[in-house]
């Protein structure tokens, strides 16, 4: 037996952990990535936008053009690039099904690759999928904030109450300083 060398590149996915911490939110622009899927996520991000203003931050909403499937539409979106350029911190969601997790993670990883502190928001059911998708890109310890599952199908007032209750946890996931 003799040693031979593989003609393929070694599998060396760079381990990139969780990315930067957010620090103080005062004066910062916090991007909230929405999708086309979940009304509940719109209500949550509405509540969090108000709470972020109270923290001295400026919320910036962006709704992904696709809910599923069309990767080119996402990658080619100048609007998304402008969104990333305009924010200091990113909140991406909602990981609440296979397709929407795929794209919420995709967009969140794009933010991380721009060195933007990012938290991924997932319902409990889809945390493992979100982590698996992020790990594939080398982000082996993303910041995830979990919301209860199911979230969709609840009354609006209930969802907004959940959002308010979870805001402190969201800030903790971002390692913010108040």
């Amino acid at each position, binding site marked *: 037996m003799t040693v031979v060398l*593989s003609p393929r590149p070694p599998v060396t996915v760079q381990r990139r952990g969780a990315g930067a911490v957010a620090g103080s939110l005062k004066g910062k622009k916090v991007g909230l990535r929405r999708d086309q899927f979940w009304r509940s996520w719109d209500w949550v991000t509405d509540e969090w936008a108000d709470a972020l203003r109270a923290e001295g931050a400026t919320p910036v909403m962006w709704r992904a053009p696709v809910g599923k499937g069309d990767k080119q539409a996402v990658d080619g979106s100048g609007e998304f690039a402008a969104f990333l350029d305009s924010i200091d911190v990113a909140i991406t969601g909602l990981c609440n099904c*296979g397709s929407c997790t795929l794209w919420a993670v995709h967009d969140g990883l794009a933010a991380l690759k721009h060195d933007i502190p990012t938290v991924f928001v997932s319902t409990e059911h889809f945390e493992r999928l979100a982590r698996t998708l992020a790990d594939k890109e080398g982000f082996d310890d993303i910041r995830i904030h979990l919301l209860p599952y199911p979230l969709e199908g609840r009354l609006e007032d209930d969802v907004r109450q959940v959002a308010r209750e979870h805001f402190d946890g969201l800030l903790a996931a971002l390692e913010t300083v108040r």
Partner: protein
Amino acid sequence: MTVEAMGLAEAVEELQVLVNGDGARLELIEGDTGAGRLHLRLDLDAVECIDCVLPPDALADIIGDSVRRRTASDIEVIVDDPRRTDG
């Protein structure tokens, strides 16, 4: 670790995370590391929202990537996905 070393059934169980949140299941049809082939079937019977499941191309890509990352070989991964209409 190779797929053979960790056990095909175990490898497939690890992949369930990709679909089971939406109620789908991956079934092992054939695993032949000698022939370099892993054949899976996506069971959507218990899925309520078909559009919620990872899209077919993305699912096949992620499964193939995950399996090949665990192997030193270019194992062929076949996913029978009932959403595909091209056979």
